[in-house]
């Protein structure tokens, strides 16, 4: 985006018709966003933009373009965060062309300058889309980090018995996190029995099995006994079909069975009250 000078007459003309253009622009934008933001709010935002636009067109100072871009980026980001579509976001910029065109359609002498003006608006509109998608990607990245944190709790089932309920797909990054959390919990609680519950893991393939085996082996190195629970019938079939060997690792159908085994290993007995 370079300089968009040579719009002196256009700038002067638009300045004279300030209220009319901003009014029409706000109308178009408000229709586009379907009253999710109030028309007063829209108008307020557009007033600022309009003022910046005129400053850029009139080339009064060299900071105007920078300020305009910064304001535009900020608006696009806030639109992205508030769940507006890219179309609605870009429309906010593009619709100024319509508002201005309706006005200058009769003024033939402004036609060449209108072309420059339209190019400038197109550039700004594309910029909003770029900023919008960058903001969305940032949101997605933040969410996946948050999900990773949320999805790996270590719970204490009993004195000396901890469990990790795994929910969702297991990949290398998550296994690493699960392993670290489990081992840290073993050390900090002094637990000797651990249960890895995979009820919430949708599919178990060779890779996932490999990850589970690694975690169990690492827990073993610390001196803990690790049981895998929550193996569903179809998962059991997959495991056998794939020829995965869990070796001497204890596996149980439900978390309750695994807890019973862990208690027995810990030398505890459950008796009726």
């Amino acid at each position, binding site marked *: 985006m370079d300089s968009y000078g040579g719009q002196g007459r256009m700038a002067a003309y638009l300045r004279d018709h300030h209220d009319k253009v901003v009014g029409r622009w706000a109308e178009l934008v408000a229709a586009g966003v379907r009253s999710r933001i109030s028309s007063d709010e829209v108008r307020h935002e557009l007033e600022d933009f309009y003022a910046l636009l005129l400053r850029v067109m009139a080339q009064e100072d060299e900071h105007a373009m920078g300020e305009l871009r910064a304001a535009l980026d900020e608006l696009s980001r806030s639109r992205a965060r508030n769940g507006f579509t890219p179309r609605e976001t870009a429309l906010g910029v593009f619709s100024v062309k319509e508002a201005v065109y309706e006005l200058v359609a009769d003024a033939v002498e402004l036609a060449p300058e209108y072309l420059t003006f339209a190019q400038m608006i197109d550039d700004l509109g594309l910029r909003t889309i770029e900023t919008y998608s960058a903001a969305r990607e940032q949101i997605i990245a933040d969410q996946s980090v948050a999900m990773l944190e949320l999805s790996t709790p270590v719970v204490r089932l009993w004195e000396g018995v901890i469990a990790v309920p795994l929910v969702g797909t297991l990949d290398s990054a998550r296994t*690493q996190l699960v*392993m*670290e959390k489990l*081992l*840290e919990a*073993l*050390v900090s609680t*002094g637990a*000797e029995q651990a249960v890895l519950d995979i009820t919430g893991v949708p599919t178990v393939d060779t890779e996932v099995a490999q990850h589970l085996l*690694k975690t169990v*082996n*690492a*827990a*073993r*190195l*610390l*001196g*803990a006994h690790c049981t895998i629970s929550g193996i569903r019938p179809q998962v059991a079939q997959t495991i056998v079909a794939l020829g995965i060997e869990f070796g001497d690792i204890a596996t149980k159908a439900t978390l309750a069975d695994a807890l019973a085994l862990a208690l027995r290993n810990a*030398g505890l007995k459950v008796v009726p009250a």
Partner: protein
Amino acid sequence: MDRVPIVKIGRTLFVSIQIDLEDESVVRLQEDLADELAATGATGVIIDITAVEIVDSFIGRMLTMIGSISRLFDAETVIVGMRPAVAITLTELGLSLHGVRTALNAEKGLALLNGTD
């Protein structure tokens, strides 16, 4: 070269590794431990690696070898106090320390050897 001290407590030999292990000191430890096992007739060996922060395949193999040597003297080896990071490294290296038992800390290791656990 630093030597790793071997302490005899009852019928158990207690080895606490507090130094950065070099190849030479590891070999020396194996020799010392074999001598000590032969001399004392100890039935258990506890190796405390709480202070070990970095391991490689050589140290992993060393731990397994100590286990094998001890078994020849009819003594059981328990490795205690492994740090999570060390456990992850050993697992990633594919070393699962077969033939060696593990415990969370020295107390639990001792209980394991004495059969009270």
